[in-house]
């Protein structure tokens, strides 16, 4: 059997987002810009991963910075650091940390989808030779990264892995599957370059970046969907998954 995560749930139980319930309504999010970087990391991240999940082989993280120009709350941006994993046979990105650009977005993301969101400033900029993102919080830059030398690819060449958040629902910790849909209009890929990453700001103290893998950027219509599946965080997902709808 593959290796499992080793997260001691009690160590983070008090800081988990509290969800109102699992009846979250979907948000349509048209014309989004999604910058994603993947990077291999040093061994040792299992202590951050819930016991229900397996680490990827080799271990790696993704940084996802998204600008949503239209949402029920108006424009906002979201930056995530995700530890990539397997829920049984399914690839999933376990969200370690998230920064959203407005207080309303922070509240909604925490209460509706279980994101461990905090407020910060997010900039996503396109230049002739790169697409760059910066995330700042409390006066400090906590993430600075870029896709370098963009090259147009087909939308079909990109694969977005669904996310998993860890939140409290009715007092109990649950893994929440967040599985947006994507209709891609434009896509590019390029080299991944992370020039600044402060792990502690992303609940990722054990994450040490090693080898950059790839970067992509797309323009797409997407959503934050209704919740379909939840999982027990300490039970292998084969036994601990519950279909919500």
């Amino acid at each position, binding site marked *: 059997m593959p290796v499992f995560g080793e997260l001691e749930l009690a160590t983070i139980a008090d800081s988990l987002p509290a969800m109102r319930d699992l009846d979250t309504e979907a948000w349509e999010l048209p014309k989004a810009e999604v910058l994603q970087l993947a990077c291999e990391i040093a061994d040792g991240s299992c202590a951050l991963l819930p016991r229900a999940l397996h680490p990827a*082989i*080799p271990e*790696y993280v993704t940084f996802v910075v998204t600008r949503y120009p239209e949402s029920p709350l108006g424009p906002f941006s979201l930056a995530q650091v995700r530890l990539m994993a397997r829920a*049984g*046979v399914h*690839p999933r990105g376990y969200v370690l940390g998230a920064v959203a650009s407005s207080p309303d977005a922070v509240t909604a993301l925490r209460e509706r989808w279980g994101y461990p969101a905090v407020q910060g400033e997010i900039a996503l900029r396109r230049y002739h030779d790169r697409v760059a993102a910066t995330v700042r919080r409390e006066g400090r830059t906590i993430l600075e990264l870029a896709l370098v030398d963009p090259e147009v690819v087909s939308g079909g060449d990109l694969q977005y892995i669904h996310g998993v958040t860890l939140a409290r629902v009715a007092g109990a910790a649950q893994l929440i599957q967040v599985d947006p849909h994507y209709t891609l209009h434009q896509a590019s890929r390029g080299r991944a370059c992370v020039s600044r990453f402060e792990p502690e700001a992303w609940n990722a103290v054990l994450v040490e970046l090693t080898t950059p893998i*790839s970067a992509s950027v797309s323009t797409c219509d997407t959503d934050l969907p209704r919740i379909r599946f939840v999982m027990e965080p300490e039970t292998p997902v084969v036994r601990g998954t519950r279909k919500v709808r």
Partner: protein
Amino acid sequence: MKFGLFYELSVPRPWTRESERTVYDNALEQVKLADELGFDQVWAVEHHFLEEYSHCPAPELFLTACAMVTKRIRVGFGIVVCVPEFNHPIKIAERTAVLDILSGGRVEVGTGRSATWTELAGFNASPDVTKKSWDEFVRCLPRMWTSEKFEFEGEFWSMPRRTILPKVYQRPHPPMWVAVTSPGTELDAADRGLGSLGLTFGQFAEQEKRIAEYRRRIQLCEPVGEFVNDQVSTVNFLYCGEDDAVGLKTGRQMANHFNYLAAQLISVRETYPSKSYPSLGLLPQLRRQATGPDASEQAGEGLCLGGPERITRALKRWEACGVDRVNFLLNTAESIPQADVLASLRLFGKEVMPAFNGGKS
């Protein structure tokens, strides 16, 4: 219809010296029995770093051992990864020749280019160019085996004029194959006059269509070797029980183990957007399609799990689709006890094999 074995050599945790050795020993014992039962070939893949799923980085060594304990069964060196960071083409030509000599001319060569980020990045190889390097390799290998002296200047490797030794035992050279996972790769095989070594199950109708197109295209091929290998091979699970209930239960368990381990690997597409690895090219995904929770009833019918009659029915369907050979995975992560694997093989040899080839092995 010919039957073979297909080894990834899966080793479950916890890993010990003895657990690794047991997997290899068990596989050798299975191959020896398969040889006695009249199986035609045994294949071993080249994989690296694929924890639990495959501990088979040096298939030619395992196959040499197979050749030493058998008399007739052919040894399939493949999939050998035709990417320069993994293997220098001269070394592939030389190792193939030595294996062919030691086995008395029983080698078949399966070529491929790896489909996981885990492996390609481990060797610092770019996924973008693996198809091109594979193409260069497969055009060189037959000439390296058959020309007295050989020189080459290519995009991925070059060499001055030298005598590559030894030459292969078979004349003109061993049959060559291409690993086919992505739809369309069977046409790359056909265009070069190479056998289609399918590594996915798919469904009857889909496979039938792809095989028909392969057969049509290979008529027009420009062979890279001295002869055209126009055969189609597929892979399947095998667990033959006394009845369907036992056979299906045990066999499904093995198949599920396999799919679970395969899904832990990082496919190229998961992390690295590239035209070189199109969407349906994922070996684990396609295998899951056939045996996982999304499997259709039809795909389930194509699996060689169950009692002898059910397995015979499945193989007759594959035969009708145009498949020439079926290679079987017998176990995963040692989930089936060795005695049961051997019993399944014996039962298959006794009850299923006589239904093919006029009962002759």
